[in-house]
């Protein structure tokens, strides 16, 4: 929100330097599958996970989150590879959940009247009245987000206020505010188009993340870490809803954390549920498997391979303010509009 539309995000994170497919579909890769099946060497040899790499499965997406059916088109990836991509056009609102609430209105409000906040420190906070009261202890004595006489929380409750607060140089008038933007200001959702390679192209050296990194199965852009230092430096909280998303003027509603709202397909083999796809075409799965355990073999991007899915990522916890750590494959693209 504040600051984290892609442009602001790039902008702001720049500032911080001072302080700081389950697809099963596809049938693609049949050549490799055939090789492994007909291989006349011992069947006990190591599985080549490249051979079973799954690709994005359009059928996993909830149709209500899409502006049009998923198709394929020619595309060029970040490493220059010219290939075929899925074209995923989202309408900017989650298919299966309401957007918000974000900020409580009074210091007496309970957790149902606000969303959540995370600053990357590993703690996940319910943004209720008590949280607003605790801000001076958390971030410093110059934090005062409510009217002491009435208990009313200072919230950016108009489009003008939201846009004045959701920019790098926060209007001083909106410092010490809980910042939220209604999706109603942006026609109920910002349409965006993602091009995602049908066949992921693995990179020898992973790419660092861009401002946006993928799309969830319920039709929401998955963003990189929210620029919390910049947000906090203006004494603002850009509250997230209980799904880990919020709204900014440029790209509308987007997720900064996985809180279960995109787990629309249940895994049958005990593996974590798939929740979306990264721009490089690899699937993103929840953090925990059906036993509530994490994997021990994740690489620097938070990914690993198995015999069913091939390479894929596992999201971090919401409190870590991120989904994945880097791109293991060459990326497609994301643009505002349906072009």
């Amino acid at each position, binding site marked *: 929100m504040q600051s984290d539309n892609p442009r602001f*995000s790039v902008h702001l994170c720049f500032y911080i330097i001072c*302080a700081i497919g389950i697809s099963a579909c596809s049938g693609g890769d049949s050549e490799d599958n055939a090789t492994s099946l007909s291989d006349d060497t011992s069947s006990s040899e190591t599985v080549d996970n490249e051979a079973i790499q799954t690709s994005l499965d359009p059928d996993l997406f909830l149709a209500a989150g899409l502006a049009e059916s998923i198709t394929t088109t020619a595309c060029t990836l970040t490493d220059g590879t010219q290939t075929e991509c899925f074209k995923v056009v989202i309408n900017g609102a989650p298919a299966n959940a309401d957007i918000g609430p974000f900020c409580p209105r009074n210091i007496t409000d309970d957790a149902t009247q606000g969303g959540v906040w995370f600053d990357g*420190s590993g703690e996940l906070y319910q943004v209720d009245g008590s949280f607003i009261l605790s801000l001076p202890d*958390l971030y410093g004595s110059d934090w005062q987000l409510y009217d002491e006489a009435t208990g009313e929380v200072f919230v950016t409750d108009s489009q003008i206020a939201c846009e004045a607060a959701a920019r790098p140089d926060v209007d001083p008038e909106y410092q010490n505010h809980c910042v939220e933007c209604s999706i109603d200001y942006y026609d109920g959702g910002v349409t965006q188009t993602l091009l995602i390679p049908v066949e992921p192209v693995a990179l020898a050296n992973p790419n660092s993340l861009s401002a946006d990194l993928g799309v969830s199965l319920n039709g929401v852009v998955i963003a990189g*870490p929210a620029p919390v*230092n910049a947000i*906090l430096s203006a004494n603002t909280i850009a509250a997230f809803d209980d799904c880990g998303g919020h709204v900014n003027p440029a790209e509308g509603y987007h997720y900064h954390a996985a809180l279960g709202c995109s787990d629309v397909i249940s895994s049958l083999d005990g593996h974590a549920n798939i929740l979306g796809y990264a721009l490089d075409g690899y699937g993103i799965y929840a953090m925990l498997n059906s036993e509530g355990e994490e994997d021990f073999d994740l690489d620097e991007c938070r990914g690993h391979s198995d015999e069913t899915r091939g390479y894929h990522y596992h999201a971090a916890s919401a409190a*870590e303010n991120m989904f994945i750590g*880097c791109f293991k494959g060459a990326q497609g693209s994301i643009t505002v509009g349906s072009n």
Partner: protein
Amino acid sequence: MKIDLTRLAVVSLSLCFTSLSFAHSGHVHKAPLIACQSLSKGESCRYMVGKDKVYKGTCQLFEETLMCVRNQPIEYLTPLSDPKLASVKDNESITLQK
């Protein structure tokens, strides 16, 4: 994307001062950043969350900032199981660098 360099410099400076004031606020929300302060991309890092959780991973770049990306399950410390970690925490240096 347009970057206004003058504005960037001014805001960067103000953020530098702001971050100084954060240093003693008691809550280190920058632990994943501090954990990679003197490290390079790809190097191992770790930091503590609360008094009993250790997050271990590698430093990765987000825009221009290095941040510790956990890639190992969260480790829960039992009291006195690791006096070295406990003493580091007591010294308010939440970051534990290898």
